[in-house]
C-alpha cells in the first residue's frame, strides 16, 4: 500500500525504510565469527571459518537446542517461559529409546517390543513431549499459576520420571533404522546432519506460522496485552494450551533426535538445555516481557551459541573459561542489541 494514501495531511518526510530487527543481531554473529577468525590466525595459525567440517559441527551441536528454542520463542512471545524443555528432552529420549531397541539386547526395557519400525519410537517421543506441554498449558490456563512455577514443576517431575523409567539405567543398543535419524548426509560435498535439516524445517514452519497465520497473530496479541486480547475475542486459555503444547512437542522432537544421535537414551539427557534455548531466543531479540520476537532472530541466536562453543574449542580455551566468557557474551549481545533498537526507536 502506498504510504501517502494513509498519510492524509501528515508531514511525511518520505517513506522510511525499516530494517528487520534481526539485522543488528546478525551483525553480532558476524562480528563474533570474524573475531574468532582473526584470533585463529594469530594463535592457532588456521582459519576458523574455512572448514566445512567445523561449520557442519557448529550447526549440528546447536540444532537440538534450536528445535527447542523455536518452541520456547513462542512461549516467551506470550509473556511466558518454559523451564521444562530440558527435562522433557530427557524423558522423551528415554521413552523413544526404549521402543527402539534391538532384540540383540538381552536386557531390553520391553523385550517384546524390540526390532520395531522406528515410527513407534518417534511417535512415543513426540507424544510424551506433547503431553508434557499440554499439562503445562492447562495448568497455566486453568489455574492461572505463573508459567515459571508450572513449568518449574514439570521440569522437576519430568526429570524424575526419566530416571524412574529405567531406575536410572541408560537404554542402549538401538536399532539402526532409528539411529539413522541422527546421521549426516553429504549434500554437494557438505556434510549435513539430519537434525540440522529437521531444525531448519521446524524453524521455517514456525516462522510462517507466527508471521502469517491466525495462530501467530494471537500469540503476539496475548503477549502484547492480554486484556485487550480478551476483549478482542481471543480465547486466551485455549490459545496458551496450544502454544505450550507446541513447545512440548518440539522438546519431544529434540529428545528423539538426541537419542537417535547418541544411539542411546540416558536419563540425564538435556540437562540445562532450557537455559540455552531461552538464551538463544533472547539473544535473537525475543523480549521476556512478551509481544516481541521472531524465529529468524532465534535461529541466529542459536547459531551464535554454536559459534561460541566451537570457537572456544578451536582456540583451545579451557572449559571453565569457556563458560565464564560465554555468560558474559550472552549478556553483552543482548545489551548491544537493545541499545541499538532503542536508538533506532528514538532516532
Amino acid at each position, binding site marked *: 500500500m502506498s504510504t501517502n494514501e494513509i498519510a492524509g495531511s501528515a508531514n511525511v518526510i518520505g517513506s522510511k525504510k525499516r530494517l528487520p530487527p534481526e539485522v543488528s543481531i546478525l551483525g553480532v554473529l558476524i562480528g563474533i565469527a570474524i573475531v574468532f577468525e582473526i584470533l585463529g590466525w594469530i594463535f592457532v595459525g588456521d582459519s576458523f571459518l574455512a572448514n566445512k567440517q567445523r561449520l557442519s559441527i557448529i550447526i549440528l551441536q546447536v540444532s537440538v537446542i534450536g528445535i527447542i528454542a523455536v518452541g520456547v520463542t513462542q512461549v516467551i512471545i506470550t509473556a511466558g517461559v518454559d523451564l521444562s524443555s530440558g527435562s522433557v528432552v530427557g524423558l522423551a529420549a528415554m521413552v523413544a529409546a526404549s521402543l527402539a531397541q534391538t532384540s540383540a539386547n538381552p536386557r531390553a526395557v520391553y523385550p517384546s517390543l524390540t526390532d520395531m519400525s522406528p515410527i513407534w519410537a518417534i511417535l512415543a517421543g513426540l507424544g510424551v513431549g506433547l503431553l508434557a506441554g499440554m499439562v503445562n498449558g492447562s495448568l497455566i490456563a486453568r489455574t492461572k499459576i505463573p508459567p515459571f512455577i508450572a513449568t518449574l514443576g514439570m521440569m522437576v517431575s519430568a526429570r524424575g520420571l526419566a530416571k524412574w523409567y529405567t531406575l536410572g539405567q541408560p537404554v542402549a543398543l538401538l536399532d539402526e533404522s532409528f539411529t539413522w535419524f541422527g546421521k549426516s548426509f553429504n549434500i554437494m560435498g557438505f556434510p549435513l546432519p539430519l537434525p540440522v535439516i529437521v531444525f531448519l524445517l521446524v524453524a521455517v514452519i514456525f516462522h510462517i506460522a507466527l508471521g502469517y497465520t491466525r495462530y501467530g497473530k494471537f500469540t503476539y*496479541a496475548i503477549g502484547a496485552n492480554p*486484556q485487550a486480547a*480478551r476483549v478482542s475475542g481471543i480465547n486466551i486459555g485455549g490459545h496458551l494450551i496450544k502454544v505450550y503444547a507446541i513447545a512440548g512437542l518440539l522438546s519431544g522432537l529434540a529428545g528423539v533426535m538426541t537419542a537417535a544421535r547418541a544411539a542411546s537414551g540416558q536419563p540425564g539427557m538435556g540437562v540445562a538445555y532450557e537455559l540455552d534455548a531461552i538464551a538463544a531466543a533472547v539473544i535473537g531479540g525475543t523480549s521476556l516481557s512478551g509481544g516481541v520476537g521472531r524465529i529468524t532472530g532465534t535461529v541466529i541466536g542459536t547459531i551464535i551459541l554454536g559459534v561460541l562453543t566451537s570457537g572456544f574449542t578451536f582456540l583451545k580455551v579451557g572449559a571453565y573459561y569457556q563458560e565464564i566468557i560465554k555468560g558474559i557474551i550472552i549478556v553483552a549481545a543482548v545489551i548491544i542489541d537493545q541499545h541499538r533498537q532503542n536508538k533506532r526507536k528514538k532516532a
Partner: protein
Amino acid sequence: MQDTGTMEAAPAGGAAVDGGYLLEVENVRKEFPGVVALDNVQLRLKRGSVHALMGENGAGKSTLMKIVAGIYTPDSGSFKLRGEDIKLRGPLDALEHGIAMIHQELNLMAPMTVAENIWIRREPTSRFGFIDHGEMRRKTVALFKRLNIDIDPDIQVGTLSVASRQMVEIAKAVSYESDVLIMDEPTSALTEREVDHLFTIIRALREQGKGIIYITHKMNELFEIADECSVFRDGKYIATKASTEVTRDDIIHMMVGREITQMFPKEEVPIGDVVLSAKGLTLKGVFTDVSFDVRAGEILGIAGLVGSGRSNIAETIFGVTPADGGTIELFGKTVRIDSPATAMKHGMAFLTEDRKETGCFLLLDIQENTQMAVLQSGYVKNGFVQQKQLGTDSVEISQALRVKTPDMAEPIINLSGGNQQKVLIARWLLTRPKILILDEPTRGIDVGAKAEIHRLISKLAGQGVGVIMISSEMPEVLGMSDRIMVVHEGRVTGFLDRAEASQVKIMELASH
C-alpha cells in the same frame, strides 16, 4: 467570564505586564522517523493564567508538552523558565524545576494504593527509613480535602473507574506544587460534574499565580476556563489569541485550515426489531436489575455519573464480566454470554473506554491493531491470514476515519492519542457488527474527525445495526441517541426519548 474576578484576586496574573513570562519556548523542532512532529513552534505561558492548546489529532500538542516536561529532547529550539535559559535533562529534572504534567494516557500503577501512587518516590519515611504509611495517609487526606476529592486513599487504584483515576492523577500533579502544570486532555473521561470540579481546582491554582497549560478538544471548555489559546496544525504554530477575542469558528478554522461540519446531524432511520434485550441483569455490588431493549437501527445512549455503573453494564453485556443474574436475549433468543469471544460470535462489538489497558496492543503496529478482532470471524483461510485483502480494507477504513500516520506498519504507540482511538474504532467497524457497543467513542478525538465518526455511527444505524453508546459528553448523548437510558448507582433510573430529552432531565435522573 470569571476573568475579572480572578485578575483582582491574583495580582500575579499581571506578570505579563512587566513582560516576564513563566515559560517561553521558541523555535522548537522535533522530528520522529518519517514525521516532523513540531516545526519551529513557540509557546509563551503567563503567570496566573490558563493557556489552552488546540489542534487536530496529531498536530503535535502532546509532543510539545512532553518536551516542556523533559520527556523528549527537542532537535532544536530555546527554552526559558522564569526568564532564564534552561535545558532539561529529564522528567525528574523538569519536576525539580517546577514543571508537572498530567499525561493524556493514565499512568498509575494499578496494584498500588491511591496514596502510594501519589507519593511515589517521595514517600514520607520514619526515623529508620521505613515508609511511614500513617503520615502518607494523612498527607493524602489533607490533599484530597483541599481539592475536595472524595476517594479512599487506601483503595487499590486498579479498582477505580477511569474518571476517578483521572482525579487521582490530577491530585498527584497538584501535590508537586509546581509553577507550571500541564494537563493533556484531562477531561476526556470525565462527566460534567467532575469537569466542574476540575475547573474549580484550576481556578484556585490560577489564583495562586501558577501557569496552567490545558489541552482539550472540547470547544466549550476553552471559553470557560482558558485565558489564552494557541493553535497548532500539522506540527506548525498558527497563532496565540486571548480567548475573549476569538469565536469557536475562528479556532476551528485555524485548527483545520478548511471548512468542516462541526456537529453531524443524526439521520432519522427506520427502527426495526429488538436485537438485544437485557432482563434483570445483575452484577453483585456493581449494578442491579438492569433491563432494556435495543432495536435494529436504534442508538441507545447510556448516561450517568462517574461510578454509576455505565461501563460495567456494557462490560457485562459483552461478556468481559459475565452477569451474576438476569438474562440477555439476542435476536429473540436467550444467550449465555460468558466471554467476549461468545459475544462476538453473536455479532457484537465493544469499544472499551480505556484504550491503554483494554484497547491498544502498544507493541504491535497499526495494521495488527486494526485487524486483531476481525481475525476471529473472517479474512482467514486454512489458518492463514489473507493479509492482502485485509490490508486493503484496513487502509480504506483508516482513511475514512482519518488516521494520521505515515504508514500502517508504524507501531501504534507512536500515534497521537486521538489517532489511537481512531484505530480502535476501525478495529471494531471492520468486524461488521450487528450490535455495536461504544464506551466513550470520541474520547480524545478532534472536532473534524468527531463529526465524521458520528456520521459513521449514524450510517451504521441506518444499515440496521443496534448501537449502545456511553458518553460523558452531553451534546454527544443528546445529539446522537434515539433513546437515553440514565443510570444512577447501579440502577436504571429512567428512559428519555429523543424528543423529550434534555440536559436538565438527564441530570435529574442521574443524581436522583
